[in-house]
């Protein structure tokens, strides 16, 4: 029996923060695991997303988020469908998917001289279709294909939390370690090339991290909704901040905030209306809502500033 049973929106937060200092760590409830996994995903995505948007690679991230399904199909093929999605298998799948996608897309652009948008679109749709067919063939079950697209927060276990924490730590350590390289590469690719001979290495490292993050998040929110985590918090933060470090921190925090709100609201709806809604979807809706709200706040703030200036 979940301690959050029957809690509404505000009671949820009250309970959560009181439990944060007591029993969360010893006996986590499902809602707390959900919050944990979603926050860890938000951290991973908030750290990578800004770099992706700055490099104008979000559509490539979209492509990766689709093709990880082929990676998942690959892990099922190699390790059997009973394997829980633990970290090593995820890494193998992510590596496979990222490698294939990057190779094919760049091959099409450079070797076949196909325009960029069409190359991205052609590669990910065909690989995704292949992934769906393989998953259907291997597992004889269409449900996994569906679930990987839309995610299933309710099925999360403590092992998922551990995996996503490790992924977040991996992202955090690599981004802090190579912050300078990522930063230069995002703003001035030419400069990065002249400064060091391995600037394209960081490009591929970023691709790999994106792929790992997508595949790590697929149990929680599904491969497509990860995109919202990657792009949304950054766009919201961008309304207020203009330097990279605050942007990164704000994206992470906004992602975590949306996760908290989403889980709480989902619980609230279940309590008051008896409506079990998809928590992952709600979190993404909150990411969208936060953007719109921030935009309005910024507008009001600006017009207020203008008014006071006019008075002076």
């Amino acid at each position, binding site marked *: 029996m979940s301690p959050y049973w029957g809690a509404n929106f505000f009671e949820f937060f009250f309970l959560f923060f009181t439990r944060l200092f007591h029993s969360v760590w010893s006996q986590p409830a499902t809602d707390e695991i959900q919050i944990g996994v979603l926050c860890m995903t938000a951290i991973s995505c908030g750290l990578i997303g800004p770099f992706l948007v700055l490099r104008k690679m979000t559509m490539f991230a979209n492509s990766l988020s689709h093709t990880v399904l082929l990676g998942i199909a690959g892990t099922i093929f190699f390790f059997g469908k009973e394997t829980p999605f633990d970290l090593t298998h995820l890494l193998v799948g992510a590596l496979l998917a990222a490698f294939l996608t990057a190779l094919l897309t760049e091959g099409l652009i450079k070797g076949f001289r196909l325009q960029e948008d069409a190359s991205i679109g052609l590669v990910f749709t065909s690989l995704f279709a292949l992934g769906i*067919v393989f998953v259907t063939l291997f597992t004889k079950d269409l449900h996994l294909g569906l679930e990987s697209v839309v995610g299933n927060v309710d099925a999360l276990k403590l092992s998922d939390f551990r995996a996503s924490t490790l992924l977040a730590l991996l992202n955090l350590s690599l981004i802090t370690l190579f912050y300078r390289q990522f930063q230069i590469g995002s703003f001035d690719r030419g400069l990065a090339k002249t400064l060091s001979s391995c600037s394209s290495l960081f490009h591929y490292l970023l691709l790999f991290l994106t792929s790992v993050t997508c595949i790590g998040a697929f149990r929680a929110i599904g491969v*497509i909704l990860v995109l919202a985590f*990657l792009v949304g918090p950054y766009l919201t933060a961008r309304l207020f901040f203009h330097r990279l470090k605050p942007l990164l921190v704000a994206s992470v925090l906004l992602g975590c905030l949306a996760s908290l709100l989403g889980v709480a609201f989902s619980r609230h709806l279940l309590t008051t209306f008896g409506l079990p809604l998809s928590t992952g979807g709600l979190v993404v809706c909150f990411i969208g809502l936060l953007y719109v709200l921030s935009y309005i706040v910024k507008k009001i703030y600006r017009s207020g500033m203008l008014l006071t200036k006019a008075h002076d």
Partner: protein
Amino acid sequence: MSLIDFFIDPVLRGPTWGTLFMCIASGLIGSVLLLRKKTLLAESLSHAAYPGVILGVSLFALAFPAHEEWAFVSVLAGASFSAFLALKGIEWLMRRKVSPDAALCFILAVFFGAGIVAASSMQSQLPSWHQKTQMLLFGQAATMTGIHVALYGGLALSIALFFLLMYRPLQSVLFDRDFSSLLGLNVKWLERLIFCLLLASLIVGIRSVGVILMSGMIIAPAVAARQFTHHLHRMFFLASFFGALSGLLGNFLSIWGSMYLSTETERMTLPTGPSIVLVGSCFAFLSLLFAPQRGLVSRLFRIGAFRLRRLEENILKYFWKKGTLSRKILHETLHVPMWALFLVLRRLKKQGWIEGAYSLTPDGMKRAASIVRLHRLWELYLTEQLKLETGKVHKTAEEMEHILTPDLEERLTHLLGAPTQDPHQQPIPEKSRFP
């Protein structure tokens, strides 16, 4: 089950004709998007249609729970509404200096998230209807009937008709937008119309290919068609042809796969969307590889043929200067691997340019002399007409001697006044006719 059965059998003909019409429509629209470099817009909009589909069906289920066979009307209405909203959202974000790719991604993900929330609420409230909307994610053509086919056929036909009637204005807008607005065309309205048709073809496709893979069907036939032609009307025709073919084969693959997967106890279905997209992408990849003009294989072949000719001509030229040469000396001076030299020399011998342990035949002499003549003519042209320094001209002449045509040679001779000496005081060989 013969091939004709797919078109006339009362159960099979619905999906066959339905996918056929839908793929023709998406091929046509796809060519326009490909030329405008906006194919990823289709990706975003097709995902964004999902919440509309769910809401439309839910409202329909609440209002007319007994008329399930008409539910597809609500699918169309809902999908076009939310895709239109997404389009406006993308435009709004881009006006606020969000980069286009980020705007597309953000709208895609948020709309899809909203769709998933709506779907989960539907799952608890209207479980039997939810089952049916789930198949719209990956497409399920099998249950299409006459009404669907009539509607989708009508939409595809109207798209084709639009392309036929508006061919000229469409062409001018696609290739030069500013020029066509100067001509007095209403570019804005035409673009709006194209977007409406894009929405139409997307929502038609939702039924058979599904919201997630619909963009694949927009891109793949257009990419395949682009490989074969430079003409817009042929591209439209080929794209609809490739689309139709992949629709037919994909539908067949899906039916066959479902039969293969199903056991006596359990019925499995291979969704239509992935199979159609797989077939379409196969066509696209094959044309990227093997198309006669733009394909990778023919391009590599052309490059290889040119390199071979250059090597042959360089070897002949070298013989002309040095007389008899062994393979080893050629290897050391020209830096060409021994095996390649072996092949090239054998080829030259077969064509009758060289003989013995490598010296030129009389025919070979003439051929080599004509190459040297082109080289020296070009050098002279550069120094006399373009006033280049004598020391700098050799390198470009080394390239040009393989490219100059007989026509150009004649013009050069005429321009330079039938010269006999090049800038390095070497004789320019006489023009010789060789067979």
